[in-house]
């Protein structure tokens, strides 16, 4: 871990929708390429040299070696410059940073994953982790909500999950424009939590999405009786170092970059500024 990034090459840029793309990077250094390992929920600091650095959640699974995938929305300076890059461009990557999902706690129990919009980015890593060792989890449920069928990210992969029998995956959209075909649920994400109908006892819940999504989903989960300590949420903050020094990501006295970004709801309610 260092403040100096490793150079990496953009080998593939997959268009997802007008705002989102999936970028696949390969480290230039062979040793780093092989030794780079992470756990789901961790993030990397992505450098576009000359523009700046931004924290981005890792979207690929920890078992996929040799490359790192980041699903990025075109939202600011660095992400804008990233979207403008062509394949074979050089970027800087350093990390992985953050605590990641406590997979050792989650294993052996049930797992409910609830994602909203781009919240699928870190959760895709967790989903891939689970798929790779499905036998270590009991029931697994995935709920994914998006605005409309066109804004469902990774729709092919998600449809494959829906088709699986060992995972209960339901997709939901807020509305369906007339020209679109949509087989999934139409309505609020909170409704599919009911339809997934996971047991309350022994279930860990991983939630990620925009603030308003958190509000409704957390309310729903608590009303169903999930304990605050079993709900894991991923916080987003500005970061400039990833190592607990720059001070930008401090919430209360916790550094999101080292003590987070994954917090249980129990920890999060005790932090100021969150809700």
């Amino acid at each position, binding site marked *: 871990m260092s403040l100096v990034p490793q150079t990496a090459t953009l080998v593939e840029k997959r268009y997802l929708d007008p705002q989102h793309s999936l970028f696949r990077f390969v480290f230039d250094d062979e040793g780093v390429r092989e030794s780079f390992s992470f756990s789901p929920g961790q993030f990397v600091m992505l450098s576009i040299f000359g523009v700046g650095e931004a924290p981005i959640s890792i979207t690929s699974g920890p078992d996929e070696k040799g490359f790192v995938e980041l699903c990025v929305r075109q939202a600011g*300076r660095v992400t804008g410059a990233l979207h403008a890059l062509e394949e074979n461009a*050089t970027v800087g990557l350093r990390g992985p940073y953050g605590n990641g999902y406590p997979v050792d706690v989650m294993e052996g129990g049930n797992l409910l994953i609830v994602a909203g919009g781009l919240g699928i980015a870190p959760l895709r890593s967790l989903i891939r982790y689970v798929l790779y060792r499905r036998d270590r989890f009991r029931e697994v449920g995935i709920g994914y909500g998006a605005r409309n069928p066109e804004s469902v990210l990774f729709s092919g992969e998600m449809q494959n999950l829906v088709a699986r029998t060992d995972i209960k995956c339901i997709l939901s959209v807020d509305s369906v424009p007339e020209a679109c075909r949509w087989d999934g649920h139409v309505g609020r994400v909170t409704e599919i939590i009911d339809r997934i109908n996971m047991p309350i006892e022994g279930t860990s819940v991983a939630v990620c999405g925009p603030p308003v999504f958190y509000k409704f989903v957390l309310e729903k989960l608590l009303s169903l009786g999930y304990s605050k300590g079993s709900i894991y949420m991923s916080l987003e903050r500005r970061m400039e170092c990833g190592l607990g020094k720059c001070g930008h990501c401090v*919430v209360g006295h916790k550094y999101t970059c080292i003590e987070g970004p994954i917090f249980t709801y129990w920890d999060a309610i005790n932090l100021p500024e969150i809700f």
Partner: protein
Amino acid sequence: MRNEWILDKNHLSYWLRQLRKERELVGPLLNGGKDIVFRTVEQIHEIVLDLPASLPSPKEFLLPQYEPMLRLDIPGGEPGVHYRAQPVSPDACVKGSRAGRVYDLAERRRRIVFGVRPCDVSAVRLLDRFFLEGYRDPYYEQRRMNTLMVTIACNNPDPTCFCIGLGTGPYLDGGFDIQLTDLGNRYFVQAASAEGVRTVKATSFLFRRPGKADHDDQYEVILSAKARFRKRISLESPRGMILAGRIKDDFWQRVAARCFECGGCVYECPLCTCFTVTDRRYHGGIERARLWDTCLFKGFTRMAGGVLPNEKRMLRTKRWYYHKLIHYPEVLGGFGCVGCGRCTLTCPGKIDMAAIATAMKGLDLDGATAVVGKGRQVGIGEVMRRPKPEETGAGPEGEG
């Protein structure tokens, strides 16, 4: 044998010249605007020895205002352009090679900072914990390892100083490299760190061992300096009041209403460490540097898409005080304040640490009165004013 010596004042400049042979010598100098600043000493006689206690903090030599972190050469461009006068360290490591080279720019220059105050040395000891525990910050570590600090104990604390209530000054029993106590015609020299002892011993012919009279004189000087403090402020009671929930948000609201968001307190504070990272292009490559940043600025937490988790000024002001009074002791074992009083001198809104600690006791900031001591009512102007030099004894800032 205790590491104590006596240095005759006539030998000081000769000693500094000896020190300068091994290291860059930095000391308090008068700049063009007649401010005292720490700069590289060219002429020993230009060092200002008659210093106010709160001269600038030496934090800039450990965490510079602008610190180059790495440089990326772009193939085809002009490699190795010196963006600043500072040289790229010759043993800079090369990381990655495909698209140019990334140089790590940790500075390895050896330096001696002369004239540091004890409060600042106390601050550096906390900075060491912050930067070197958990992730070891390589830039800080390099600078810290190569920096020797010669402390001058404070015989004449400023009216704004309150280190005495925090145990961070005006004299230190340990934790410094070398500490000088001015005894009139000579300095009482103490060395605590191994490098400090080595440095003194390397020029041992300039020093003599202290006698009983020297010890007595030092003791007397310390006592009289301690009696000179006007502010007797403890941060324990503000901390306790916050933790007990007695400080409500409307108090912070009134503090925030007087905050100009100038960032002066943060830049002056020897314990404020937040930085921002920026990339700059120049022909031939890119330089990435870190700069001081301020949590009081609105954009400090701005995320892509323009989301601001800390949009209210009240939350930002409150966070600064919480960080220093609550979080610093919890995480690093000491207050995020050493009582140097620089924020008192800087803050145009007069909501510096000393003023806040005092105002909290009266639980009033902009209202008509504040209760200080045994029910004595004083106006806010009295609480928040700057002490005048002719005042003696504990004023309204006193513990009561």
